């Protein structure tokens, strides 16, 4: 009986661990989604033409880390969209918790800064949950192999949020370079500090 109880506990804790670690891992195939862009259009990964992959970035307006990386996100898109890796920026925050991150404010911010990439509103937060994103900015680099999108890199843009000049490791650029050379990504996962995603209360 004691043994049964112990194994029951073990099963429970395993189940717990797996729910806590839900979401995409390196190599996971990504289910396409449809979200509203700042221009009102519904966008899915498949609607973006000629993509060899996507730099999916969960980001937002209000977070100082996201702001610090804003210019770098623009530069990533300008450099890599022509090479087939466009930025797909997604704001997952609940505007009730973070009013700066409302759809209207997203439109304003994108206009002010001239975002060259799509900036999508994850109103139900389903996509952020699907990816298991936890903070902004949080990058998922996807590779498109004949319509199958797999996760190749999860983490930060580089290793110095305060000053891009001092960033010795440009993780996303390095990962794209690896993919372009047909190699596995050398550093597939990195950590960074960021703002928590503001989940609906």
């Amino acid at each position, binding site marked *: 009986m004691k043994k049964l109880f112990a194994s029951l506990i073990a099963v429970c804790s395993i189940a717990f661990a797996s729910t806590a670690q839900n979401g995409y891992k390196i190599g996971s195939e990504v289910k396409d989604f449809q979200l509203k862009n700042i221009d009102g259009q519904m966008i899915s990964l498949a609607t973006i033409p000629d993509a060899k992959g996507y730099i999916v970035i969960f980001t937002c307006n209000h977070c*100082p880390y996201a702001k610090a990386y804003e210019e770098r996100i623009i530069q990533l898109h300008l450099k890599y969209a022509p090479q087939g890796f466009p930025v797909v920026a997604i704001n997952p925050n609940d505007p009730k*918790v973070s009013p700066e991150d409302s759809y209207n404010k997203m439109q304003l911010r994108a206009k002010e800064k001239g975002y060259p990439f799509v900036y999508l509103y994850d109103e139900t937060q389903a996509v952020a949950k699907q990816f298991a994103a936890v903070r902004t900015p949080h990058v998922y680099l996807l590779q498109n192999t004949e319509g199958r999108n797999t996760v190749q890199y999860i983490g930060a843009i580089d290793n110095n*949020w*305060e000053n891009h000049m001092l960033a010795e490791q440009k993780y996303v650029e390095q990962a794209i370079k690896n993919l372009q050379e047909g190699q596995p990504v050398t550093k597939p996962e990195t*950590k960074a*500090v960021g703002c928590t*995603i503001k989940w609906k209360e």
Partner: protein
Amino acid sequence: MNIHNTILPRMRYLLILLCFSCFWAKAQKHAVADTYNLEQFQQRVLQDNDTLYVVNFWATWCGPCVKELPHFKALSQELNNKPIKFIMMSLDAQANLPLLNDFLQKKKVNIETHLFAAGDPNIWINQLEPSWQGSIPATFLYQKGRKLSFKESYFSTKKDLKSYIINHR
């Protein structure tokens, strides 16, 4: 010469001055932050004694962090005479140390505070806690030179914070 006419009035004046300065000091009481690297941090919290270190990673610009700060303030006062030490580790930009100190003064934060300048986050986050995704607020408990617990979310009440500490010590 009469002692009542000369020394006592002066002493009275001194006494009033002393009382006033005490009140003034009390009203002004707030922590002053300095900068800590990873090694300094570990030396501070990984001490081989019975003190429980409650360490909160936060930043002045982080909404939920600032929201839970009053719980930390209140509880640190409430548990003042217990072997519990509260430490606030700020992840504000290094250049913003003066802003951090302004904030501590304005909000009358009297908890030991350091600005954490530990270099590459991909290294120190994993070193402190491999399961930490890097979002703040995050709270750690340390005692007897080891980590007891870690939580990557915020406390909505003082009661929540208190039961977290009691349940994990």
